[in-house]
């Protein structure tokens, strides 16, 4: 039995999938140069045209399926491929090459496409350079259609996890008949077309894994798209734990359960919201019976195309999310770059550019986002949350900018909701200690436990040597949470706990015991959490909270809590 191995990558599409690995390999696209007789070129051109025709039929079928599917917006990717197949610059030049140089179709395709690849590589624009991928995708398809008569689509057994250096969007479309459970790739980012398609298909995906060589076809994998990690050959206990969680995955939630509000065993109503990272997830949140969106991390959609977005597009996107979730509230957290994904490619330092600090440094982006938010604000119930606040000065500066944006909109006679509540995300020790001072300036709070725990305990979860010290049951964390709760009780400002802590049944029990009544968890954890809440008794948890506050070790606290709720 091989040992369990955790491989870290980048979160590209949330959710968890368990299945057997299927290594896809990128065909090496080796083509040989044959000279053919002048008289045979006509036949070779016909062979080439047949492959174009076959590719066109495949793409058209894919496109009509997509248009009828739940993701019609993805069909534009196929449009681009179809247009390449009609492109004279491409098709006619390949035919000319076959005729003039008397070479085989494969060679001509490679010749023409490699010239085009070079032209793409010379472009300055990152986005346009990336479009080389569309051309590669179509070339691969044509070469394949030239070489084989049968379909390239493998027969996948149920719950296959596709593992490959790159996996193209069109591969995903072709395999979408419910046979793929998740995907793992070496290249790609949350912004890639493959990630966008994976999210709209609801396929968990982890990308940006440096070395895939340790995964072989047939290995059992757990793809945790929400955490951006892959567990290879999981130990029986890990597998059990994940399977347990999977049982209550969103799609298996009974409709009746989805519409009942979260209530504890002793009848206390708990507000249970969901966290989303991409606007496309709003629809899934609704079908999941989500009461409200407690946290929409807007940075992924904001930087979707790798550069400054347009105000109108953002406004439309935000309005769409509000309408989808309406009449419930959506808490939009303003862009928080520099945390996970930006620093991974080495372009952002982790602390200097976090949350509000980044926004105050880059006021043009901050104002752009605020304008888009306010312009969409009348489409539903919006709240705006400021991330990573560490000083009152920063908060005041941000509030001043918000007031300025509102004044400008007023002067331009643009209508917006004047009463959009502004809130602070408590995720630095400084904010936890001073939330009472902030309470007179803002209307609500969210508690971001992931970062708060890291900074309180002086650890970095990405650093393996200290990651095991991460514990929401540390006495310091319990005291901190108790203090925040008490300070905010006096101020009368509502608070929602948004971190992963709220999604762990034992940690959630501690939160309820400490008095918190509003939680927001990932979409994957949502149904399970609702069930957990209904089995908890707040009266008993209050007593438990009093008891664990006197304990001195994270381990003892955790054991005590787990044995109580078991």
């Amino acid at each position: 039995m091989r040992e369990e191995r955790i491989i870290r990558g980048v979160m590209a599409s949330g959710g968890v999938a368990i299945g057997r690995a299927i290594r896809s390999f990128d065909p090496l696209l080796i083509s040989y140069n044959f000279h053919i007789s002048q008289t045979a070129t006509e036949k070779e051109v016909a062979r080439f045209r047949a492959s174009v025709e076959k590719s066109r039929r495949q793409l058209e079928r894919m496109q009509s399926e997509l248009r009828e599917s739940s993701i019609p917006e993805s069909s534009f990717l196929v449009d681009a491929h179809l247009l390449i197949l009609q492109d004279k610059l491409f098709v006619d030049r390949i035919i000319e090459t076959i005729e003039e140089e008397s070479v085989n179709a494969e060679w001509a395709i490679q010749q023409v496409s490699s010239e085009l690849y070079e032209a793409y590589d010379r472009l300055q624009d990152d986005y346009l350079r990336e479009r080389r991928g569309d051309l590669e995708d179509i070339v691969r398809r044509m070469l394949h259609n030239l070489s084989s008569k049968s379909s390239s689509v493998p027969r996948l057994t149920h719950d296959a996890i596709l593992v490959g250096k790159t996996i193209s969007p069109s591969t995903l479309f072709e395999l979408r008949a419910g046979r793929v459970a998740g995907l793992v790739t070496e290249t790609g980012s949350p912004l890639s077309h493959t990630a966008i398609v994976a999210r709209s298909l609801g396929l968990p995906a982890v990308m940006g894994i440096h070395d895939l060589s340790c995964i072989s076809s047939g290995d059992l994998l757990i793809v945790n798209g929400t955490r951006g990690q892959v567990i290879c050959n999981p130990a029986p206990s890990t597998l059990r734990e994940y399977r347990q969680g999977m049982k209550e995955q969103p799609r298996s939630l009974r409709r009746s359960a989805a519409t009942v509000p979260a209530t504890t065993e002793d009848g206390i109503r708990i507000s249970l919201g969901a966290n989303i990272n991409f606007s496309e997830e709003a629809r899934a949140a609704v079908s999941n019976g989500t009461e409200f969106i407690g946290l929409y991390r807007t940075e992924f959609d904001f930087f979707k195309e790798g550069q400054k977005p347009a105000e109108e597009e953002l406004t439309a996107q935000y309005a769409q999310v509000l309408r989808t979730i309406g009449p419930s509230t959506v808490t939009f957290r303003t862009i928080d770059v520099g945390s996970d994904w930006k620093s991974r490619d080495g372009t952002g330092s982790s602390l200097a550019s976090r949350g509000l600090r980044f926004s105050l440094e880059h006021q043009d982006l901050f104002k752009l986002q605020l304008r888009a938010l306010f312009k969409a604000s009348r489409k539903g119930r919006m709240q705006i949350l400021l991330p990573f606040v560490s000083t009152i000065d920063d908060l005041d500066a941000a509030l001043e900018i918000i007031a300025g944006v509102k004044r400008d909109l007023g002067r331009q006679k643009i209508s917006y909701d004047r009463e959009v509540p502004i809130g602070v995300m408590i995720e630095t020790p400084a904010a936890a200690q001073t939330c009472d001072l902030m309470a007179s300036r803002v209307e609500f709070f969210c508690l971001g436990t992931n970062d708060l725990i890291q900074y309180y305990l002086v650890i970095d979860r990405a650093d393996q040597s200290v990651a095991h010290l991460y514990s929401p049951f540390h006495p310091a964390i319990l005291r901190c949470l108790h203090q925040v709760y008490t300070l905010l009780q006096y101020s009368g400002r509502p608070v929602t706990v948004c971190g992963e802590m709220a999604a762990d049944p034992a940690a959630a029990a501690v939160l309820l015991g400490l008095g918190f009544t509003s939680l927001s968890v990932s979409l994957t954890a949502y149904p399970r959490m609702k069930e957990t809440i209904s089995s908890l008794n707040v009266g008993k948890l209050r007593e438990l909270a009093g008891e664990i506050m006197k304990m001195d070790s994270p381990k003892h606290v955790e054991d005590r809590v787990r044995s109580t709720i078991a």
Partner: protein
Amino acid sequence: MTEREVVVGHRLGIHARAAARVVQLSSQYESSIFLSRTDHGKKVEADARSILSILLLAAAHGSALTVRADGADEKAAIDCICEYLKG
């Protein structure tokens, strides 16, 4: 032959979706249509019916393009393409 200058109004410049649209619009006309741009003193030209050449034109937001059409419906073709490129 008709020629007209236009400034690209699309925020991302002529990217995948916009390029696809230009090809689709151009295909409705009989005239041959070309887009050209001067980059560091060098003229770059693209066939408006070729998505690859339009993308390679790398026309960013705010760049000035010359649209040239030649054929029976050149006037209508230029109107339509320029209107779209303005954003």
